């Protein structure tokens, strides 16, 4: 087990160009994720998030670059990588023909946790205890033996997470896990993930296009058109991206412009004047002006505004 703060995921100059594509889906991406970190890859549709996660989980070969998961090379030693990761895919990957328990059993045997047995009652007591605990956690009880078809979307997602954690992976990849879920199911899923994080040292790697989901991460990597455009903690990104400014205007605009220049204040003219506060308080700025103002307001953009500004082109 790598010590905390050691990178558990290392991505270097990752490039992926799909066959017949005229541009790179992932274009020179590099980042590291530390053990136990909650890392969010944020970006609009088509930014390259799913492509990145597919390469990291060995289901897709990169065009160039290097990926190490827990020290194992994702291309040269993919089996070692797969043993260390759990994945919740964008589209549910539960077999609807099987029961919840059968899906869990299928996974547990594939990962070599238990030997193959055709029936639940023939499985080792340890497995049956684990399933019973999981069913309790999900509030399913005996319903875990019912076909997955009869479960709600939110419940299926939780079942996938439980299944993905059965083999105690070092990294849990979540590829837009709340896509298609209603608000209540989303909330319940995040509460459950919080519990998982509190209970284990599992590194969580999330891809999402919802900013509110990424905001609770330790670090956010914003991806756009296959490139990393920002990387840092939510606080760092806010500090870097969110510039508060004062919106002012006057009937005598020439005088106001001259006065702003004289005081050495940074401003833009976009109809009214946008005066960057940049460390000054709004009150100081207003106090220093003699020109009579006709418009006065403070603009404080949210992280969402900043994010939309970054990826605005891609969203349109």
């Amino acid at each position, binding site marked *: 087990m790598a010590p905390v703060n050691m990178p558990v995921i290392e991505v270097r100059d990752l490039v992926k160009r799909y066959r017949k594509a005229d541009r790179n889906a992932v274009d020179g991406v590099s980042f590291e994720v530390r053990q136990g970190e909650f890392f969010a890859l944020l970006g609009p549709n088509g930014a390259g998030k799913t492509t990145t996660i597919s390469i990291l989980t060995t*289901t897709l070969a990169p065009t160039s670059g290097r990926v190490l998961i827990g020290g194992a090379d994702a291309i040269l030693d993919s089996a070692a990588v797969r043993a260390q990761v759990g994945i919740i895919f964008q*589209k549910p*990957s539960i077999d609807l023909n099987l029961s919840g328990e059968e899906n869990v059993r*299928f996974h547990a045997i594939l990962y070599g946790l*238990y030997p*193959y047995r055709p029936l639940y009652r023939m499985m080792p007591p340890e497995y049956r205890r684990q399933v019973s605990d999981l069913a309790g956690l999900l509030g399913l009880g005996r319903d875990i033996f019912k076909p997955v078809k009869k479960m709600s979307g939110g419940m299926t997602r939780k079942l996938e997470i439980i299944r993905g954690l059965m083999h105690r992976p070092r990294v849990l990849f979540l590829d837009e896990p709340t896509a298609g879920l209603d608000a209540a199911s989303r909330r319940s899923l995040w509460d459950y993930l919080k519990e998982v994080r509190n209970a284990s040292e599992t590194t969580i790697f999330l891809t999402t296009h919802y900013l509110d989901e990424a905001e609770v991460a330790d670090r956010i990597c914003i991806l756009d058109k296959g490139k990393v455009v920002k990387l840092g903690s939510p606080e760092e990104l806010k500090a870097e991206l969110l510039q508060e400014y004062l919106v002012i205007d006057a009937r005598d605009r020439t005088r106001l412009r001259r006065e702003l220049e004289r005081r050495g204040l940074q401003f833009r003219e976009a109809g009214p004047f946008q005066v960057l506060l940049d460390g000054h308080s709004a009150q100081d700025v207003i106090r220093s002006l003699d020109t009579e103002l006709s418009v006065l307001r403070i603009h404080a953009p949210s992280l969402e505004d900043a994010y939309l500004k970054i990826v605005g082109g891609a969203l349109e």
Partner: protein
Amino acid sequence: MKELNAILTVASRDVTKLLRDRTRLVFTLVFPFIFVGLMGGTLQSNLGRAAGFNFIGFIFTGVLGMTLFQSAAQGIISLIDDRENDFSQEMFVSPISRYSIVFGKVLGESGVSLFQAVPTFLLAFALRVPITLPVFLALIPASVFACFLGAGFGVAVMSVINSQRAAQQIFPFVLFPQFFLAGIFNPIKVLPWYLVPFSLVSPLRYPVDLFRGLLYAGRPEYSRVVLLDPLTNLAVMGAMFALFLIFGTWFFVRQETNR
């Protein structure tokens, strides 16, 4: 051991799915009746005397080969369906060999196909196809090999097809001609010269001929019905299966990861 457990669990999933699919189970019972009962009976009444051998036995061996081969091959194609429903990702991100996954599918779909062979055998007994106990006992392992070959053929086809829709369109083109080239319903002892190479590369030809070699062994019509001796058929089937499985899996995995 881990790989063996994985193979068994992948295989058992297919059998479980069959047992829960009522429509497919009903179709399984009706299918042999249509071919062996209706077609065999009709041909026996009209052509049996002229051909000089038991036509129901001929049709039974053909339909048995076709059922096992086609069912196993089509079952394997369901991996494409899994891929489209993203269930295959669950398998392909697990730390087991790709060959184990595909072999598990081959085993599972072979099990499903063998299940479908049971009503074919029952109907054959009811129609008094001359199946002695030694012949029956020899037909069981031969049926398993036929399933393996069909599944291997499915792997090979799957490796070059991208979508379920493409599979549904292409599969009949690679399967239906084999019904005639392999002699399911029609004798192929004599073929026009231009069909001979197509018949020889038609995989279905070999399990069907193997069944006929076993059913007609020691009978006067053997030389008029059977094309190759059973051991030669088995050797060809083994070689084809190995080729299909190794290259098919390699291409399939390559296609999965090198998109």
